[in-house]
């Protein structure tokens, strides 16, 4: 009897963690295919795409029904992890689809790329589901190590190797900070559970060492999220990495990293110093990111600046806290990921065999490649927060949470007001660089540009779906909003 009970419970665990299991299995299968199959690259591409799609299906078909469920001691498959995993998987799937035609145009295409992509996705999903420091660090390292290799994946390009080393060194420093902070927190609380550490922090118990530990963990997170003043690596890495990998860093990696933050911050009313600290990071990020992007001529670096600023906006909701803050943050995360994904997928779609698309490749794009131009327009407008796109709703929710539609605490009123005004002015200023690129696409009618690839079917379909998704969420945001707010409560 006991055996059957534990079998049933084991099955339930397996169902709840199905996406993780599917991801791990397909990563191993792809690895095997790369080693043994005849047409290594094609097999790896197909297995990777199928594996990601299967993981996505399993998370909706199996995992969703089991929520919330604690799997083992370290993974909590709940609404938050579901949202995080969904964002990560959708991003990874679109990136995988875009990678196929992108890589096939280049020399030295290798199947290992897809293995790394799957491992990175697995790491990000574990990160999103982690309920203890151990699994958090495990997921983070799985993600980071895969990313080091992905960034420097094309060894013959010096800028790729440079970016990989920049990323390796700075991310290791961040990991070290995080680890040391975790050790201090563990030393003070005797627990690895995120929830008990968060509770101890909220109650203000624990001495100065605990506070130092929290601060160091904060620095680690800020590094990984590329939040100012820990953002310096982002432009270099985005520029050096190939477009799909940069997309992975900008979307899946950041979304996964933000989930534990929401998990820790949302249930508690933050004390004044914590609010001011988050507000300072947020304001600094908006300003630094936008200044970076404003001065930048290169598209990928501009998007790096943009995502630094976007994460700054996101922190507004985290500083506001409460269930409204959590819903706003998660919604914005979804909108931001989808829009950034769209922008990078467009870059990948028009990148030539030699180099990734730059500003000049966008000139007159609307008459050459209307679909890519349309999706890029939707993505940029969404990042800029204009209506009919997901970004508008997301930004409104951020502002709304910042204006205290949740549970306002007296300590939060002043910093939040300042943040909201900063958000408004920054996002108006950011229009300058979004519009500059946008306007370029509709100038002139260039004949076929040199070396511009032809449209690929699957990548094109993914692109169209991203564009439609941005519009759908922007016009009928209700269902997603309700799903997120009910899931975040589970």
């Amino acid at each position: 009897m006991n055996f059957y009970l534990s079998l049933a419970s084991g099955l339930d665990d397996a169902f709840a963690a199905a996406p993780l299991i599917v991801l791990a299995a397909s990563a191993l299968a792809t690895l095997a295919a790369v080693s043994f199959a005849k047409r290594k690259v094609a097999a790896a591409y197909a297995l990777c795409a199928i594996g990601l799609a299967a993981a996505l299906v399993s998370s909706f078909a199996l995992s969703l029904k089991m929520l919330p469920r604690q799997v083992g001691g370290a993974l909590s498959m709940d609404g938050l992890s579901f949202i995080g995993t969904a964002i990560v998987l959708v991003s990874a799937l679109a990136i995988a689809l875009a990678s196929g035609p992108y890589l096939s145009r280049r020399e030295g295409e290798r199947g290992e790329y897809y293995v790394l992509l799957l491992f990175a996705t697995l790491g990000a999903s574990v990160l999103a589901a982690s309920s203890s420091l151990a699994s958090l660090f495990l997921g983070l390292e799985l993600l980071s190590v895969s990313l080091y290799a992905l960034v420097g994946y094309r060894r013959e390009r010096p800028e790729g190797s440079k970016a990989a080393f920049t990323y390796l060194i700075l991310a290791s420093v961040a990991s070290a900070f995080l680890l040391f902070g975790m050790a201090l927190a563990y030393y003070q609380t005797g627990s690895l559970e995120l929830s008990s550490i968060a509770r101890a922090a909220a109650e203000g118990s624990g001495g100065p060492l605990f506070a130092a530990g929290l601060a160091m963990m904060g620095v680690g997170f800020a590094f990984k999220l590329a939040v100012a003043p820990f953002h310096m690596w982002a432009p270099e890495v985005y520029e050096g990495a190939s477009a799909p990998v940069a997309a992975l860093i900008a979307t899946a990696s950041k979304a996964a990293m933000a989930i534990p933050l929401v998990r820790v911050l949302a249930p508690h009313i933050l004390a004044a110093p914590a609010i001011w600290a988050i507000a300072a990071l947020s304001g600094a990020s908006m300003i630094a990111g936008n200044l970076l992007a404003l001065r930048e001529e290169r598209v990928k670096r501009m998007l790096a600046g943009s995502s630094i600023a976007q994460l700054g906006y996101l922190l507004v909701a985290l500083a506001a806290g409460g269930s409204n803050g959590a819903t706003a943050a998660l919604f914005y995360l979804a909108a931001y990921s989808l829009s950034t994904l769209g922008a990078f997928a467009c870059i990948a779609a028009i990148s030539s065999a030699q180099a990734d698309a730059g500003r000049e490749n966008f000139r007159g794009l609307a008459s050459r490649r209307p679909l890519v131009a349309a999706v890029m327009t939707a993505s940029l407008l969404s990042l800029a927060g204009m209506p009919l796109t997901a970004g508008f709703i997301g930004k409104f929710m951020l502002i709304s949470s910042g204006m205290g539609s949740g549970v306002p605490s007296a300590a939060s009123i002043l910093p939040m007001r300042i943040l909201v005004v900063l958000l408004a002015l920054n996002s108006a200023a950011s229009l300058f660089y979004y519009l500059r690129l946008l306007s370029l696409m509709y100038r002139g009618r260039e004949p076929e540009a040199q070396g511009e690839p032809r449209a690929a079917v699957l990548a094109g379909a993914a692109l169209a779906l991203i564009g439609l998704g941005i519009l759908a969420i922007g016009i009928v945001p209700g269902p997603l909003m309700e799903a997120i707010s009910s899931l975040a409560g589970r």
Partner: protein
Amino acid sequence: MNLQAIPLGLALFIVIPLACGLASLVLGGRSSAPGRLAAARAATLAGSLACLLLAAAAWLGGAVPARLELAWIPSMGSSFSLSLDGLSLPFLALSGLLGAAAVLASWKGIGERVPSFHFCLSLTLAGINGVFLASDLFLFAFMWELMLVPMFFVIDIWGHEGRHRAAVKFFIFTQAGGLLMIAAIAGLYAAHGAATGEYTFAYDRLLGTAGGLGQTLQFLLMLGFFAGFAVKLPAFGLHAWLPDAHTEAPTAGSILLAGLLLKTGGYGLLRFAIPLFPDAARAFAPVAMWIGAAGILYGGLMALGQSDMKRLVAYSSVSHLGFVLVGAYSLNEAGRNGVVIQMLSHGLSTGALFMLIGSLQDRIGTRELGRMGGLARAAPRMGAFGLALTLALLGLPGMGNFVGELLVLFGAFKAEAAVAVAAGLGLILAMAYALRMFQLAFHGEAKEKRSVADLSAIETGTLALLLAALLWIGLYPRPVLALLSLALPGIAGGTAP
């Protein structure tokens, strides 16, 4: 006619332009066959005319007030709710009329990417109509921002030489104001929710909220709304985007900008900024009125010194919209009535002027007053319309502008006599710049030898229609005023002294 009995009812004002814009895209396709381009133009024209007819039918049939409420985002307390009252109806009619004029004005002038151009025009009109109808604050913010994007493209793609800079400037200015307004909307929403436990964006529910707030908060929220509307109006100090945008936009863009987009600012003041925060508005009124008076004088002086005809009209708009600010913050009935009349007649007269300047530029290739002269003799019909519109610009009795300005001055005199005196000086400036413009362009010897074709039948007809509407408001404003008295009680109550 009962609009509520028609399926979709009020939403038709938004759906028709959208559908016609899409039809333009589909009909025009990517071909350049003249027949298909004409079809694309005709689709958008039909959309505007349908809106105009709908508005006229609602007006004559006594369909005000009408409401429509559809579920949209229930979890956030926002619904797709529209309401038509005496304040919104005249502006909807104006939008239909000027939308049609904009299509007609660009029939010849726009040859590039014709379907996309008409799609952008239609989308702008849909957004503008949405602004005039929305009675849910989230929906209002949505529509408010929605009209910017297509307008940006209209300026950026089809405008004149300095269009890229002007388009971005326009967008950033209005967006900064818009986001501050959104923050204020969110603040009001949160305050209402905290006080009553009901989180809603419905206009009717939020009307009385501000009374229960602290004075500082009320004032801050009011300022947020004011920022959004003052940029759009534009108020003195926030007007830097306007001369560039108006000058660089294509003719149709200038017509929509001056004729409709600026009006959304004045409409917003009357509908939201003042009624939602009556106490704060009263405290702020003297400041706002002086800002308005400064705009009147500054715009007039700047217009006096312009050599570019379009820029001159643009600065005259700064001056005329100053009256809107003065009248709105007079907080009495005369002022409010004056504001609406002033906005309607400014929309008609400036729209017509931009159309005239556009056709002039198509013919002689310049907007420089110094290179014109003698046009009245070369093109008599053009001269006649030029004269009539100049007289409207300077506020001659008989034209709507006169009624509007006079009512505003009455209202202002009751509230702040000194402001009324300062604003009155603006009328003298208007005489000077309007007559100077007419003289340089149409009288005297031609500076350059050229043959100028007179206005075509379409142009003549459109201008005559706009002028007739202007005269109607000037000679018989009572129907508009009667309509205004039907406006929602919230507005009348909010602006009563």
